[in-house]
């Protein structure tokens, strides 16, 4: 395969110029490239300069030094119209266009192609319809944008950026104001758009989990201005995540690709059970500060990453199994056995100090209430 790039930078330095003072350098010596058809997620702590990088790549602000090439042409040599036909953006700013339909908003994306009145040709209309179809928002064509939900409006804004038929799409936190299902939908959509249209899509996000699952590559921008570029898995394995997001009291869990607050493990529990229920039971126990070890399916004892070294031996055992129409959680600890109907009951019990607490009656009540 040809190693072709659509966007390329060399020794790029980004930041802000100030009058009569030294410029604020946010990141420097950035050399990277975007290839057609790939989805790249830009992650980094707040204030690392993700937006500045996006703005610089979109020529909304000048670089401090270094070069950017778009389609093998220096970015600053492109006329505004040429740039608009190659690169489009979706910003976090709330767009308020007044009384305008989804179709009208998307058709604004045809501006770089239309004449002085902005009248759409038949071809333009087809492309607008295609863009709406591509984000699965045909039904939004005749709705006013003010009447749309955040997710619907985001889709229409992505369609607008698509209608520019760009080689590169830059999206600044496109999932920021969306609920979880909408985030998954939008991210999935962007990945598909990238590969189907051979476009390069670069988006910034704080959504670590979605980025790990969807991005072809990640760019991690640290607060010090270092950019780590690689497949999500590479960056997990080589410790880039720890370096970029290192902060007091927070650690990165390489096995699960997520961050945890550092805390002293308050005990060690064995977990028996399988499948989804065991998975979430483990999550619940870890959440309240227990290190959990589990009998693996192949017989090995897989120890899940303890945040800090816990007591060497387990102080109890939790087993989860299906009973009647729900799960039941049994806890054996300090010589007594208890049954719980919900993880809430189990964790409440453990948090109050385990056996001997005055919560037994409450626990039983919960259990019976469900039956």
């Amino acid at each position, binding site marked *: 395969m040809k190693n072709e790039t659509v966007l390329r930078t060399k020794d790029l330095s980004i930041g802000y110029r100030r009058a009569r003072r030294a410029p604020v350098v946010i990141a420097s010596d950035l050399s990277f490239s975007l290839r057609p058809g790939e989805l790249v997620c830009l992650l980094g702590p707040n204030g690392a300069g993700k937006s500045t990088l996006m703005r610089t790549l979109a020529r909304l602000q000048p670089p401090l030094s270094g070069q950017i090439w778009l389609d093998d042409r220096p970015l600053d040599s492109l006329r*505004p119209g040429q740039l608009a036909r190659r690169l489009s953006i979706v*910003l976090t700013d709330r767009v*308020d266009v*007044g009384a305008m339909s989804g179709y*009208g908003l998307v058709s604004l994306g045809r*501006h770089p192609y239309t004449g002085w009145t902005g009248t759409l040709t038949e071809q333009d*209309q087809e492309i607008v319809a295609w863009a709406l179809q591509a984000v699965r928002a045909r039904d939004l064509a005749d709705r006013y944008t*003010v009447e749309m939900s955040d997710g619907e409006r985001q889709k229409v804004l992505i369609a607008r950026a698509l209608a520019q038929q760009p080689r590169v799409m830059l999206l600044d936190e496109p999932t920021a104001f969306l609920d979880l299902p909408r985030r998954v939908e939008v991210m999935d959509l962007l990945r598909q758009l990238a590969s189907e249209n051979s476009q390069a899509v670069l988006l910034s996000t704080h959504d670590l989990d979605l980025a790990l699952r969807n991005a072809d590559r990640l760019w991690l921008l640290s607060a010090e201005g270092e950019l780590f570029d690689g497949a999500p898995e590479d960056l997990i394995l080589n410790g880039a995540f720890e370096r970029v997001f290192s902060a007091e009291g927070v650690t990165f869990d390489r096995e699960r690709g997520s961050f945890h607050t550092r805390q002293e493990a308050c005990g060690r529990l064995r977990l028996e059970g399988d499948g989804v229920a065991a998975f979430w039971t483990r999550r619940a126990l870890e959440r309240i500060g227990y290190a959990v070890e589990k009998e693996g399916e192949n017989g090995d004892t897989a120890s899940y990453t303890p945040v800090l070294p816990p007591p060497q031996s387990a102080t109890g055992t939790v087993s989860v199994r299906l009973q009647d129409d729900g799960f039941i959680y049994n806890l054996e600890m300090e010589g007594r056995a208890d049954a719980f109907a919900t993880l809430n009951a189990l964790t409440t019990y453990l948090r109050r100090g385990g056996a001997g607490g005055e919560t037994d009656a409450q626990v039983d009540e919960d259990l019976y209430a469900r039956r």
Partner: protein
Amino acid sequence: MNRENAPFATSNIRVHPSLTRGFSVAPGLLLTGLALVALAAFMLSLAVGSVRIPLEEIVAVLLGGDASKQAWATIVLKFRLPKALTAMLAGAALSVSGLQMQTLFRNPLAGPFVLGISSGASLGVALTVLLAGVAVGLGGSTTLLAGISLAGDTSLALSAIIGSGLVLLLVMSVARKVQSGMTLLILGLMFGYTTSALVSVLIYFSVVERIQAYISWTFGSFGGVTWRQLQVMAPAIIIGLAGGHLLMKPLNALLLGETYALSLGLNVRRVRLGIIGSSAILAGVVTAFCGPIGFLGIAVPHLCRSLLHTSDHRLLLPAVSFLGATLALGADIVAGLPGSQLTLPLNAVTALLGAPVVIWVILRQRNLRQAFAG
């Protein structure tokens, strides 16, 4: 029929096909309607006044014929026709200028005068009218007062043109440098405060007659414009209106905000200069010849948006021109108090009649944002 099985279950959605496909039959009809209403208002304003003249006589005079009374021909040609033309041009000019400012600054409260155009004109007029009064007030002779043609039409218009022109140049030179439109808006506001402070100082030291002349200028009037002045005013406004209409596409892009407009390939600074330039010419020329006429420029764009359910400038620009002309003519007719010898200050009429209409229109809107492009 089972709705669930309908191939396109969009029937519960309010559909405005007209606004989705640019120009189509419905908005075309609406525009024609608005133009016809403007024409009707124009004819009506020729017909009514302190003397009632039959419509067929007016048509005869306009077509170059003779009226059955010579006085009627004189009244129509010498007084009512220039006044009606002025009202029409001024109404269209202020409304287009207001629409441009509201879109450029993404602010529903913006109007033709946000950049200080009328303040500049006021200062020019105040300097001409009041400075002489200050000289008198500080002990000059009263013969001096008679020597200057008080409120002479042309000298007033000239000083207003110079005043608003200087502000225009100032604003344009600032606009070329600053990054954000908001900065301009604040500068315009500050400039307005400064000029009104200067005007109050002038008023404070001036004599009563001069103050009265100045205040009657601030009431606004379409009646003072002569045919000769129209020869300057009409071409300037037509150029401004044409310039405004040429910018319909950039104005639409600016609805998304300046950053998106930039990303769509718009040369935002140049477009901003174009918008400010045409808007300032429109507002400046009207203010110079008719005084600072308030309200129309802010209200008409809102009325049009809610009338047409769109923020598409390809429709809005012609629509606000027609509606602005209509309302200016209407306000002028009402201010003339037909059948009486009295007249009301024009600015009082535009606001007294206009404010309730706008309030009604806006309260009627289910969603306020739909009424405002803000």
